[in-house]
C-alpha cells in the first residue's frame, strides 16, 4: 500500500481532486473540514511526491491556490484503493 495515502486527509484530498480539473484551497478546506495549517502540510507532502500540482494566482489582490491531480497521483490512488479492496475481500473470505 502507498504509505503516503494512509493518512485520511491526504486520501481525502486525492479523492476530492479525482473528479475535478482543479480545486481551490478554500474549497478543499470546506470539503475536508480541516484547518489551514493541517491542510497545507498534507498538500505540501503530496506536491513534494509529485501526486498533486499547485498553481498560484492573485484574485482581487488576494493570493489564490489551486490544485490538480497529476497522472502519478491518479495511478497511485487507483492502485492504493485496489489494494485496500483486495485486503478487505481477503479478510472477509478468511
Amino acid at each position, binding site marked *: 500500500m502507498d504509505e503516503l495515502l*494512509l493518512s485520511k486527509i491526504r486520501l481525502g484530498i486525492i479523492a476530492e481532486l479525482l*473528479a*475535478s*480539473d482543479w480545486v481551490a484551497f478554500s474549497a478543499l478546506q470546506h470539503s475536508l473540514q480541516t484547518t489551514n495549517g493541517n491542510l497545507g502540510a498534507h498538500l505540501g507532502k503530496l506536491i513534494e511526491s509529485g501526486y498533486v500540482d499547485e498553481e498560484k*494566482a492573485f484574485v482581487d489582490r488576494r493570493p489564490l491556490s489551486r490544485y490538480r491531480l497529476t497522472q502519478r497521483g491518479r495511478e497511485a490512488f487507483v492502485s492504493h484503493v485496489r489494494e485496500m479492496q483486495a485486503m478487505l475481500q481477503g*479478510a472477509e473470505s478468511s
Partner: protein
Amino acid sequence: MDVKDTREQLEIVEKILAASSRTLCAGGEFFLVWGIVSASIDFLNQLVANNTLPATALWAMPVLILIGVVFSTWRSIQMRAHSGRMSMLQREYLNMMYMTLGVTFVAQFAGSNFFAGWAEGAIWNVAGTMVLLFIGMHGNRRAVLAGVVLIVTLAIANYTPAIAGYVLGAGMLVGYTGFGATELLARE
C-alpha cells in the same frame, strides 16, 4: 493497517466520490449574449437582403461579434477567478463547446464558397444545436428543448427562403437566448 481502518478509508473515498459534482454549469449569460449577437446578425442580413437597410449596415456585424468576444473573455476570467473548483465534466463541456464553435468559425471563413448566403447563418444554428444537445445529454431538459427549437428553425428556414434570415434569427433568439435566460433564472 487493519481491516477496520481499511473499511473506514474506503468509506471516506466512496463518500467523497459520491458527493463530487456531476452537474454542468452551462453559463446562461454566454447563451444570452451570443444568442442576441447571432440573431442580430441574421436579422441584419435579412434587412439588407430586403433593401430595408443599405449594405453598409453590415459593418455592424464585426462590432457585434467584438462585443460578444469581449464579454465572453471578461466573464470567463471572472468566473474562473471566483469559482472554488472545476469538475472534469465542466472541463469536458468547455472543451466540446470551444471545439464546436471554433471549428464552425473556421469552416465559415475557410469554406466561404460552401457556406455562402444563408448557409453562413444556418451553420451557427447547427453548432448551437450541438452545444445545447450536449448539455441536454447531462440531464438538462431545457437544453434539449432549446436544441430542438434551433434545429427545427433550420428546417423551416430552408423552405422559406424569402424570410430565412428572420427564421434563423428567431431560432437563435428563442433557442439560444431563451435557454440562457432560463438558466440565469434557474440559478437565482
